[in-house]
């Protein structure tokens, strides 16, 4: 009887102030969605960094009209360099084949390019990618070398964008989170005021404090859980509509954001929102119910 009664009180309380309840849930949902997105991005950045750390290369592009002799000389110098772990030669034909494979989805682009346009290159795995600058300095101006690029620099921009996006989502999550908590505090205040008679009677009869506080705290926790479910649903929808749908090409540049990683978010978001709502409610009650 007791648990059923308490739950019915909780629902009744939420229903009576339905507009405040809805406001609470919406702000929490937005905040938690942003939090979830931020966490996913955080995860992504980690994954990408790890993936590319091992695969980043320095590429020495050769002039288009380079001779075989010069090519061999460069190869020998590269192999003898202390920074270099591995040297792989890619001829123009191989480069062209790789180009076709990479852009097979856009045949127009492939048709516009023929085999001669792409230069041959040495793809170099470094011992330590941090030494890339030194290698670039050594070979940049050498005869026969067109350009030496450090793939890491190119990727750095992607990392910066991702990092910026991640910071943005977390800031939005924080601001919305504060708004959500203020709403929780407000709702609890209103609920405590509208139930002050019952609360007074309960205290008179000697009900322990947690008994008196429980329905209010549970209201907040319940709203928090519903908010987190909405956030979770939004993220799942985003997975299917945005990541795998509209912006698929954009996201294919990175290792995929898996469904598992989103599923893992559900208990995390629910736990975070329940605990923080409960604490906020409890603190608000301390100020509103005279003990």
């Amino acid at each position, binding site marked *: 009887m*007791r648990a059923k009664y308490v739950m019915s009180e909780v629902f009744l309380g939420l229903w009576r102030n339905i507009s405040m309840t809805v406001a609470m849930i919406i702000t929490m949902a937005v905040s938690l969605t942003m939090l979830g997105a931020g966490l996913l991005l955080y995860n992504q950045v980690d994954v990408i960094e790890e993936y590319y750390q091992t695969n980043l290369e320095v590429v020495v592009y050769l002039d288009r009209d380079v001779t075989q002799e010069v090519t061999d000389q460069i190869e020998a110098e590269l192999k003898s360099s202390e920074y270099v772990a591995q040297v792989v030669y890619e001829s123009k034909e191989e480069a062209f084949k790789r180009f076709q494979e990479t852009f097979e989805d856009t045949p127009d682009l492939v048709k516009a390019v023929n085999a001669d346009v792409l230069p041959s290159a040495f793809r170099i795995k470094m011992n330590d990618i941090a030494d890339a600058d030194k290698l670039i300095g050594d070979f940049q101006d050498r005869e026969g070398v067109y350009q030496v690029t450090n793939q890491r620099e190119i990727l750095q921009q992607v990392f910066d964008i991702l990092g910026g996006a991640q910071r943005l989502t977390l800031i939005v999550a924080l601001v919305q989170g504060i708004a959500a908590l203020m709403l929780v505090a407000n709702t609890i205040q209103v609920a405590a005021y509208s139930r002050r008679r019952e609360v007074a009677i309960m*205290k*008179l*009869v*000697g*009900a*322990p*404090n947690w008994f008196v506080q429980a329905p209010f705290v549970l209201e907040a926790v319940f709203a928090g859980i519903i908010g987190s479910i909405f956030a979770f649903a939004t993220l799942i929808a985003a997975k299917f509509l945005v990541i795998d749908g509209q912006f698929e090409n954009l996201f294919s540049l990175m290792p995929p954001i898996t469904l598992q990683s989103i599923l893992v978010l559900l208990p995390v978001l629910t736990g975070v929102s329940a605990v923080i709502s409960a604490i906020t409610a409890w603190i608000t009650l301390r100020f509103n119910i005279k003990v």
Partner: protein
Amino acid sequence: MGRLTIPASPERLKSRRYPRTGVTYGCETAEYATLVLEPPDRPRETADRLRLVIQLEGVTKHYPRSNRPSVEDVNVFIDKGEFVFFIGPTGAGKSTMIKLLLREEIPDKGKISVGDIDVTKLRRWKVPAYRRSIGCVFQDFRLLPNRTAAENVAFALEVIGKPRSVARRVVPEVLELVGLGGKEHRYPHELSGGEQQRVAVARAFVNRPLLLLADEPTGNLDPDTSIEIMRLLDRISRTGTTILMVTHDSNIVNQMRRRVIEIENGQIVRDQARGVYG
């Protein structure tokens, strides 16, 4: 006149032992008064009878910035089983006394003891437990509006942690005792004023407390109903419960002729056994 039955023969109420405190609140055979509520002829018993239930020593409480009445150096000693009227003009400090006894306020000076507990030194988190050992009845009944009569009474048991099985057994008994036999499932708004007050009395009494505080219980009731409630309280008092009742009702005080403590301007001006309203 309500459903208060007045049986021909005395009835025996079972005594109960409560595990928490280990104290047995003994009850005696109750003799029902017929028309006039006479003080009972109690057989002189043991030291139990002389045990002090309420001790107020030098209690002072001021409200400098507010209109609320203050009390000044109040000394009161009340034994177990006594029925005490607390009378005085409005603003004299009667409600302040109730608040102090219920630990809603702390006195500026002095000491309050109820039973074995020093109320003035009670820690905040122990106050709910203390309040459970006192039953109270108020002028505005103070029932939970969205619970039935039975649930209201059961609430007092719930709050102590008694299981539902105990409530199922005890609550109908108590409601029968106060004369609300068939009305367990009515909500407060479906009961008359007198019936609501009976539910409040039942709730106050269900745990057989040491002390029952009544703050103008007949204030919102008509004279006939008031007499019924007083009979009820009298019966309860005969079971050994100490009753302290604040009242304006001179009729009742004069009829019952119990100990009267009169308070005026925050000070006790009269403390008389078998007194009248004056």
